[in-house]
């Protein structure tokens, strides 16, 4: 199996990642399920991670700080909206920042048995703020958020060509 190979597709307001891991579904699920495990792989290189609180259950919250190599601290908050052991995790990323970088999005992760290993399929859905309020009120999948980021990119490409 090819390593370092993530299939990534962008469609409307959704980014989908698919990658094969040469471990069992159970192990892949396990390393998402505790602060100790997450601290080992979640942060980008050079970052360390401190968990303030972690409740890995439906509706539970994981609050953590990422300490950047430049001395900056980044506050993060994730709410697990639905967990089905061992093959499904869905969460909302609730930023604390301001402005453009503080876009809330929903991730849905499926662990799918693939021979000896596992395919991890993750969908990131970028909702509008209005959608988010609705989702906060009611657990479950997001419907109808339309940002068409992919389409936007296509238009911009056309625009660039038309301007020569």
């Amino acid at each position, binding site marked *: 199996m090819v390593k370092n190979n993530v299939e990534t597709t962008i469609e409307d307001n959704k980014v989908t*990642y698919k990658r094969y891991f040469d471990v069992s579904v159970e*192990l892949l699920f396990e390393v998402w399920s505790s602060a100790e495990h997450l601290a080992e792989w979640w942060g980008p290189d050079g970052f360390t991670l401190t968990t303030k609180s972690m409740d890995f259950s439906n509706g539970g919250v994981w609050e953590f700080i990422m300490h950047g190599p430049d001395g900056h601290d980044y506050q993060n908050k994730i709410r697990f909206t639905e967990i089905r052991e061992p093959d499904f995790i869905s969460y909302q990323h609730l930023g604390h920042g301001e402005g453009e970088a503080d876009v809330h999005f929903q991730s849905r992760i499926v662990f799918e048995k693939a021979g000896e290993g596992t395919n991890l399929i993750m969908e990131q859905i970028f909702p509008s703020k*209005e959608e988010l309020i609705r989702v906060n009120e009611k657990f479950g999948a997001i419907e109808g958020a339309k940002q068409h980021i992919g389409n*936007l990119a296509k238009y911009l490409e056309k625009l660039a060509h038309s301007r020569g």
Partner: protein
Amino acid sequence: MNAFAALADDTRMEIVRLVAKNGELTSTEIGQNFKISAPAISHHLKILKESKVLHMKKDAQRRVYTLNGTRIGEMEEWLASIIDLWHKRMDKLDKYVLKIKKERSSGKK
């Protein structure tokens, strides 16, 4: 409202498409493409201007709208940075789970 939220609305997304396709359009020209009232169009344009998705320049009596390439570029960069972050994160995840797998299998005799 941030740029992503501004574009989450179908009418506003359509306005941005029209402006992108034509290079520049006046508010009147934009309005001709929709069945909604002039005040409703104005409201959408105000949001697109405030979120810096569109530029507006006054030209005599006309308001001319163009795409703010910088802001669109920022949005695309932001999205690209999220994707890049996840690619790297999955590499780290891969290394980590393989390490655990190895440790556990060597522990089992």
